[in-house]
């Protein structure tokens, strides 16, 4: 601090970059120390890479039908061809290419809808916890009402009324999944608003909106990140379930849930059609859970699980 007093202009930004670099280095070191965290990060990086460069990585056109090549097994089995490493489906489409393209939808839907849910939930949680009283009561009763309807049923009903589609799906998953954020953020705000720095801000005449957004909001960011990561995992499963039931992503857009639904009818003869997309979902969700658990341990020691 004394150094910055002497030459404020030069050393403050430098100190800040140093501090930031130190934080980053510490973060990376603690990530490498956690084996599951590292594994999770590697899985997520690989799947993101796959989604971004799907066009370059996929050996075939994922939508190209080829009746002559239908129901070919994976290449290591008898009758398999190296052109179709994981085999083909009932329309002769390459499973590997479809899995690579399917990652795009899963990540897109997972991340976008979690952002929407997070914005709604954090806002309502902040307002509910900060103002209390009847506002809090109304918001919490709305949360109770949302929680009483199972997520999958809720989204299913809205999608059946509005009709399926990518954008609709993202919006619907966003507006039905905010309750977790609202509850946790509200709980945190209840304790943060009693802390001295909030009282100080209020005593110098800061307005409510300013206190909420500049003083309280930064303190709930770490919870936001932790809930978001784990929400992406559950949302990916939810999206796949909806697509499996035929109300999520519609063909010709490739989705892992939709592939599983195709494969279900051929499970007796061609096991690979349903098996590989399911593995892809499991691996992705596993990676996110590992990363999320590590993030929780690092960002929020209070939420730390026992025995870790």
């Amino acid at each position: 601090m004394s150094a910055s007093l002497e030459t404020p202009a030069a050393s403050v930004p430098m100190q800040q970059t140093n501090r930031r670099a130190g934080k980053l280095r510490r973060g990376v070191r603690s990530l490498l120390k956690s084996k599951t965290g590292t594994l999770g990060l590697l899985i997520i990086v690989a799947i993101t890479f796959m989604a971004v460069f799907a066009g370059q990585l996929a050996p075939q056109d994922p939508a190209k039908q080829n009746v002559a090549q239908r129901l070919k097994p994976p290449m290591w089995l008898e009758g398999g061809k190296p052109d179709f490493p994981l085999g083909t489906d009932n329309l002769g489409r390459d499973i590997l290419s479809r899995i690579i393209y399917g990652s795009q939808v899963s990540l897109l839907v997972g991340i976008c809808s979690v952002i929407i849910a997070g914005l709604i939930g954090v806002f309502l949680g902040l307002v509910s916890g900060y103002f209390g009283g009847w506002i809090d009561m109304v918001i919490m009763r709305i949360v109770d009402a949302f929680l009483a309807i199972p997520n999958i049923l809720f989204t299913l009903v809205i999608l059946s009324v509005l009709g399926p589609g990518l954008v609709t799906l993202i919006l619907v998953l966003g507006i039905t999944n905010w309750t977790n954020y609202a509850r946790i953020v509200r709980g945190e705000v209840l304790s943060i608003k009693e802390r001295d720095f909030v009282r100080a801000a209020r005593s110098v005449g800061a307005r409510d909106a300013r206190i909420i957004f500049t003083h309280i909001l930064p303190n709930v960011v770490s919870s936001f990140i932790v809930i978001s990561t784990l929400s992406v995992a559950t949302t990916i499963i939810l999206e796949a379930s909806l697509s499996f039931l035929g109300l999520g992503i519609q063909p010709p857009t490739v989705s892992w849930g939709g592939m599983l639904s195709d494969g279900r009818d051929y499970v007796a003869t061609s096991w690979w059609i349903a098996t590989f997309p399911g593995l892809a979902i499991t691996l992705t969700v596993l990676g996110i859970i590992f990363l999320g658990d590590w993030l929780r341990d690092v960002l929020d020691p209070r939420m730390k699980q026992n025995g870790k």
Partner: protein
Amino acid sequence: MRQYIVKALLQFIPVMFLITLIVFSLMHVTGDPVSLMLSDTATDEDREILTKALGLDQPMHIQYLKFMGNLLQGDFGTSFRYNQPALPIVLERLPASFELAIAAMLVATVISIPLGIWSATKRNSILDVFVTGGAVLGKAMPSFWLGIMLILLFAVKWKTLPVSGHGSFKHLILPAITLGTGIAAEMTRLIRSSLLEILGQDYIRTARSKGLMEMLVIYKHAFRNSLIPVVTIMALQTSVLIGGTLITETIFSWPGMGQLIIQAVNTRDMAIVQAAVFVIALLVIISNLLADLLYRFLDPRIKYN
């Protein structure tokens, strides 16, 4: 205690009211019920008649009051597929879903209690690593994929269990495992962490220091107390359990409420969907209330305020 129950019941009324509002707006504001119900070949005249018959030409608030009035009389509308009142059709399917849900909870309990205790008492051993890893895997696997894989192995390959249907114990096994695995994973994790916390408490040290056998310390002193949070958190999972029946019943053609809902959604039989949403919401709210009471009953340290 009584005061607490009364307060909880009073909170129940606004929540149910909000649910009617949600369902009403889902059915009436977001979509056009007439075109949902009519086929594409319907003429404008047909549309007009149906709009009048459903009272959709009236202002929104009148429609809502009518809707509420009908609900209070237990009238959830008529299913056009079955041509019968919707509520009895939904209630008729409940026992099969209960059967599946109870079987799934049994599967989850049988798996999670021994595994949870083992991994907590042998912390950081290879067994613990396997159990905690398995629990994460169980959470990451989509249940519909697990169901298909079980069919692939037990019905297609080994031909030991039926693919679908309802009636015998054999029919129940695969659906119960499909629905129960995710819950087992959650429960194992909970039992493990709850038991670990309790094993560090003073009264456990006291029990050990007076020379009690380790088995007795764990089962009589630690395990029972560790179940308090587990039982209540599991009761709060009712919503997840019911959500899971939608998928599981569809995969295994199980004739429960979940299958009925999916069929109703696909055929746009909105009266059934409406009635089912209410029945489920009611079940979830009641079980959450019971969970809360159970928690207070099991742990006398909790006050009723």
